[in-house]
């Protein structure tokens, strides 16, 4: 199964590699995958606003201003202000930084460790594989948020520790998916050939197997980023994630969203919208990536 999809994926890449102007390739993708393109646009806009937050944001996100507490959305403050008079729009823009930083770092680190473990487990097989599978089962049996809670209470709160907390549960999930693709690749003759040539285990794993499981790996990574953003927001909402005064979307919902529900509903609405839109964008983009990279799913 994986062998045939391999060929198809390569054909796909070759089609992309043909000498076509970039604009026409982009236009072609937009026509064939409108939802994916919409997701990509959301993701790109989010990355740009996060990168240029200093330029885009109208106010300082952490500057309290007691003259402007609980202002309704208007010309001066487009999305209103919170109970400390901080501008909501500025906080949401800077919050994108936190969300993306946590999302990308934990998805990349967790995915990469999972990739190495999954391929290694499939390559060595036998008892090692069995042992790894059982260990992964154990980690998978812990619901994400409970695992994250335990990690946060060991290492403490703050952005770095939230990343650790989100990374750890990702590892077994990625390892399991990668392993199942790697199992099929191990049976392919070129692995035997590499072994017959006397290549080291690490060389075979890194140079011959890892590049061939890139498709499921990339699919998992794009899915993880959205999930990581959601998890970070949940942990921050529980008070176990990013701490004040760092602007983070989950934290904005915790600080006052419920107390001021009636007098200042914008405090409860806009940060949640930001989270939803971000995860929505990454999910749409991820679905498109999966469709392109995994031909078996494409027909659906």
């Amino acid at each position, binding site marked *: 199964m994986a062998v045939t999809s391999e060929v198809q994926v390569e054909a796909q890449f070759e089609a992309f590699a043909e000498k076509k102007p970039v604009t026409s390739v982009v236009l072609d993708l937009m026509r064939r995958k409108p939802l994916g393109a919409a997701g990509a646009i959301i993701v790109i806009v989010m990355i740009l606003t996060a990168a240029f937050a200093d330029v885009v944001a109208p106010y300082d996100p952490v500057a309290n201003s007691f003259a402007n507490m609980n202002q309704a959305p208007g010309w001066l403050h487009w999305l209103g202000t919170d109970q400390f008079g901080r501008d909501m729009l500025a906080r949401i823009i800077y919050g994108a930084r936190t969300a993306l930083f946590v999302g990308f770092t934990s998805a990349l680190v967790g995915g990469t460790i999972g990739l190495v473990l999954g391929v290694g487990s499939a390559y060595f097989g036998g008892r090692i594989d069995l042992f790894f599978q059982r260990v992964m089962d154990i980690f998978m049996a*812990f619901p994400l948020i409970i695992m994250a809670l335990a990690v946060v209470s*060991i290492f403490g709160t703050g952005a770095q520790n939230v990343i650790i907390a989100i990374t750890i549960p990702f590892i077994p999930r990625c390892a399991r998916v990668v392993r199942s693709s790697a199992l099929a690749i191990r049976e392919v003759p070129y692995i035997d050939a590499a072994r017959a040539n006397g290549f080291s285990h690490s060389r075979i794993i890194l140079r011959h197997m890892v590049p061939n499981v890139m498709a499921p790996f990339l699919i998992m990574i794009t899915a993880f980023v959205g999930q990581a953003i959601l998890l970070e927001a949940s942990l921050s909402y529980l008070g176990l994630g990013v701490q004040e005064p760092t602007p983070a979307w989950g934290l904005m919902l915790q600080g006052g969203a419920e107390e001021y529900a009636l007098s200042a509903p914008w405090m409860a609405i806009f940060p*949640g919208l930001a*989270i*939803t839109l971000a995860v929505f964008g990454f*999910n749409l983009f991820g679905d498109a990536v999966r469709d392109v990279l995994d031909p078996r799913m494409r027909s659906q």
Partner: protein
Amino acid sequence: MYQYILKRILLMIPTLLGAAILVFFLMRLIPGDICELRLAGSGATFNQSSLDICRREVGIDQPVIVQFGQFLRGLVTFDFGKSMWTGRPIVEEIGLRFELSLMIAILATITATVIAIPLGTVSAIKQDTWIDYAVRAFTIAGIAMPSFWLGILIILGILFTTQWWTGIPWMPPIEYRSDWTSWDNIANNLALLIWPALATGYRYSAVAARMTRSAMLEVLREDYIRTARAKGLVERLIIRRHSLKNAMLPVVTVIGIEFAFLMGGLVVTEQVFNLNGLGKLFVESVTNHDYAMTQALVMVVVSVFVFTNFIVDVFYAWLDPRIRYR
């Protein structure tokens, strides 16, 4: 079949044992212990001797390996001991909250299934029409929306409606009545618990609806559906008897697995609605360094997960004989 079930049961043991080891040592890694917290919280000045007395009292003065042995013995005999924080039996503390969490989980599952299966089916039958697009937008939004934000929005909605209706914004405190014998109690429970159930259930229904849709699309392309159409069978029967029945397999799996994760996901929802359930107890016991309680809770959640997976696997094997012989 019996052989398969036996094999699956035996496979559960290493997972549960591993989870026990993991949670036990994870808890010991958390800096500080319950006695420091308790004595510091009481405000009194404390010295080494009072710390020692307290540690002896809750049993964390013994070597780690002895504690681990006690924990394992407790697991096997279902006697988890007493909460280190409140001093009450853990089984009692968990039992009190387990029912509430379980009720929300069940309500969420029912809501999710009732929404997901018709939506997914309609979306598959009317593929690439505006109905399909609407359902897909609904499901993608459901996966993207954090459940705690949906909870906040629900509370906001209730507050605004009551303000508009009666002039006074009012959110009834959600109290669960464990006595299900009178109609009054049942109505009370359903009317109040439906909100947290909806907040957790939306994502759940979105996942299940997506699965239903893709499974239905696959089945609708099968040869036997064409045969059924060719012999002139009514479309309603084709959908209900020939397609849905065959498409249900992956949907049941997703519903089962999501149910297992629901117990954990409730942590956030309970915080939003201020419910005294398992999730809240978990957050409290972790922050209080209540080792005994946290270990017991994690084991309960993990057991629910492992057991649900077991049921799903057995159900799968029962429906699809090929799996049994692999």
